[in-house]
């Protein structure tokens, strides 16, 4: 139990560091750390497969891509012009207000207790696979469209175009 709170504390800490660190590369690294804590959360929640996927996809693929782009642009220095403190404060206040209302909306109104007992089996590959390929087959298939379109689009946009365009 205390493990949860520890990990939760770390999640929050790292995510705060993500947004408050000035160097973008450091931010990415903190983000990786945050995602790592999330992986632990998934394990704690008995969602092993998800934990693995999270580890691979986020920390393996996505974060590398981020880093890659940052390096590509040579933005590893702290080049970002600082927003004025006022904006930061307002931003934090706004975020805080959002948090308060979100929590107020969900938690403070006394969430009723969870009724169903936990099924320790659901997070396993077998179970997930069954659900994914039975019930959620269609969205699964359609996700391919999403990825394909992103693929085509990313290449389209990122590639240097020979033809000049105007108008």
């Amino acid at each position, binding site marked *: 139990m205390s493990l949860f709170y520890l990990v939760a504390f770390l999640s929050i800490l790292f*995510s705060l560091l993500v947004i408050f660190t000035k160097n973008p590369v450091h931010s990415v690294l903190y983000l990786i750390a945050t995602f790592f804590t999330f992986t632990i959360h998934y*394990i704690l929640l008995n969602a092993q497969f*998800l934990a693995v996927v999270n580890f691979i996809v986020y920390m393996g693929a996505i974060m590398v891509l981020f880093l890659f782009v940052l390096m590509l642009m040579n933005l590893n220095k702290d080049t970002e012009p600082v927003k004025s403190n006022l904006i930061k404060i307002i*931003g934090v206040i706004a975020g805080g207000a959002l948090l308060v209302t979100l929590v107020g909306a969900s938690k403070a109104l006394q969430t009723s207790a969870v009724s169903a007992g936990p099924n320790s089996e659901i997070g396993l590959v077998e179970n997930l696979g069954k659900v994914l390929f039975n019930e959620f087959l269609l969205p699964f298939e359609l996700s391919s469209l999403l990825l394909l379109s992103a693929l085509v689009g990313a290449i389209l946009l990122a590639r240097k175009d020979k033809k000049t365009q105007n108008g």
Partner: protein
Amino acid sequence: MDNITATIQVVPLNHYILLSAIIFTIGVIGVLIRRNAIIIFMSVELMLNAVNLLLTAFSAYSGDASGQVFVFFIMALAAAEVAVGLAIIVMVYRNTNSIDINVLNRLKW
């Protein structure tokens, strides 16, 4: 594993909601206070992960796998968005030599 599960059971669901709300909000604050497009984008990823965590928690507590399946879709989206988003950022950078969002204010009023 059962052991861990049992331990987790002591943690009220509300705490998970609170945690993900906090992370989500941190993501929002990140979007609000940063000007670097990539960092903003990372903050958005933070928000998505908060949702992932929330969904997983709900899924685990209700014993229903569909929540976790949904997380897959979100991850797929995250991947797709990263691909497209970074491509856009690269494209913009190529034209403006900057990824400061404040530079992008030609379209206004």
